[in-house]
């Protein structure tokens, strides 16, 4: 195919260069001695050691990791329930509204979601006194709301494509539905749950706009620190931080990719 279409191949290569060039340049300049990010002044790892001593960034990173982990776990539970509802129960009251509510958070602009959630939290606080104040709790609640939509999509496609004969066999042999779900369905869809958890974690670590709206004075997440530092101009410490994030993500995705690839190969060979 590629040999017959050199133009297509060129566009594909250009596309990948476009996607990866900026990230690579960011990583290369994180090892730059000079403070001027784009003038090369020799190899150095000093920005990494400065980064590791930057209390503000470390504190924000820790807060973001905590929020992301709680968010990811709650999103996987709620997202899986939504996926099971949409795949297994064909007709029910509220189906259309559930479909809309799991699609919309993924595409609607962050500014709308952020503002509307803030207004909800303010009203809830005056009416029922919870959540008291804004900070970690409100950010986590907001993140679960949009992350669970992504988890639903990932789990839903796995559920829709899975072979149900094992479940049916277990039910025929008298196993309770709940037991069947935990003993058979869950292990089969486990890769989707892992992928969904990781995706929800990353989305939360990455969110600037929604967190800015629903956060309070005490809670500053990593993207907020990065944003305020980036607004002041390019900073080598941010390059170092970016490099660390890219390396961690690349390793995680590579592992996930290998797992998925093996599984796909396994299921293909079984079919043959």
């Amino acid at each position, binding site marked *: 195919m590629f040999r017959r279409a050199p133009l297509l191949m060129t566009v594909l290569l250009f596309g990948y260069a476009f996607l990866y060039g900026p990230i690579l340049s*960011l990583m290369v300049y994180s090892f730059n001695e000079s403070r001027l990010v784009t*003038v090369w002044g020799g190899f150095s790892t000093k920005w990494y050691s400065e980064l590791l001593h930057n209390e503000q960034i470390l504190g924000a990173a820790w807060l973001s990791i905590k929020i992301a982990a709680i968010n990811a776990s709650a999103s996987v539970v709620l997202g899986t329930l939504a996926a099971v509802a949409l795949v297994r129960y064909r007709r029910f009251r509220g189906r259309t509204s559930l479909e809309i509510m799991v699609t919309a958070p993924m595409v*609607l602009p962050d500014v709308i979601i952020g503002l509307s*959630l803030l207004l909800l939290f303010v009203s809830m606080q005056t009416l029922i006194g919870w959540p008291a104040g804004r900070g970690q709790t409100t950010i986590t609640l907001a993140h679960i709301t949009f992350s669970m939509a992504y988890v639903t999509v990932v789990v839903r496609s796995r559920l829709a494509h899975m072979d149900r004969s094992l479940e049916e066999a277990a039910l025929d042999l008298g196993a309770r539905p709940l037991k069947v779900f935990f003993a058979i369905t869950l292990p089969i869809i486990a890769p989707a749950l892992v992928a969904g958890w990781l995706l929800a974690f990353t989305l939360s670590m990455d969110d600037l706009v929604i967190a800015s709206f629903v956060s309070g004075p005490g809670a500053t997440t990593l993207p907020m620190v990065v944003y305020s530092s980036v607004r002041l101009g390019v900073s080598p410490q941010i390059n170092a931080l970016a490099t660390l994030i890219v390396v961690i993500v690349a390793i995680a995705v590579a592992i996930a990719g290998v797992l998925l690839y093996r599984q796909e190969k396994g299921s293909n060979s079984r079919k043959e």
Partner: protein
Amino acid sequence: MSIPGAQRALTGRRLIIGLPWLWLGLFFALPFLFVLKLSLSESVLAQPPYLDLIREFKDGVLILAVNLGNYQLLLEDSLYFKALLSSLQIAGLSTLLTLLLGYPMAYAIARAPQHWRLPLMMLIILPFWTSFLIRVYAWIGILKNNGLINQLLMGLGIIDTPLEMLHTPFAVYIGIVYSYLPFMVLPLYATLVRLDLTLLEAAADLGCRPWKQFLRITLPLSMPGVLAGAMLVFIPVMGEFVIPDLLGGPDTLMLGKLMWIEFFSNKDWPLASALAAVLLVVLIIPFMLLRHYEQRNQEAQ
């Protein structure tokens, strides 16, 4: 099944449907009512910075103070109308640019040997997993006056003075195409990879030329993917804040950025809410288009 068993199954079903529905209803759908309510309120210098719509409720009489001033301001001050037009223009054009780059990429991957497809798609999705903010930031270092491109061009002697690229519409378009490319390639790939190749073979046997095969068969059959990809880019870009803020100039008007300024800088929550309500109304039709595609996609499965 015994009666208690059926009862249990029914309770289980209610929980499975009810929990996610209630969560999204409370934290996603209900808040829009608060946006609507606040957009009809008056802005004041206080904490919180608005007057409640409901002034009094006494002896069964409800006294409301509905303020249409925010919407009136949006209509009267041409700034907001310009921002709407400029958002539509930027979102529309960048969606088209993303499609022009994304389509050939998705096509090439869908026609690649089977064992190449998954790794090639992983490479498309991978940047989406790294921080959005940081990827936008990377372009500052590339586009600024003493950035990579200008240094390269000046080093090669092609230009003498640096090109003004950062804080221009050009930088905004680059940033959007760059950030949203995976959203375009994903649905395009999904439709192109399912395409029935025997149709193309039949056309070729009947003497149809490759470019005509593409225009008559491949392109029409991939329209659902084009539509989905376009909406997945267009809808969020309409309210984009980070890209116009970091890469655009002070004259880059977009609704998302304007909302941010009204909310954070001017502390005018009611006006920001009115802007959000307008943006939401504008996005209803694109969103319905996206839903239409998704429903067809699920039926196809």
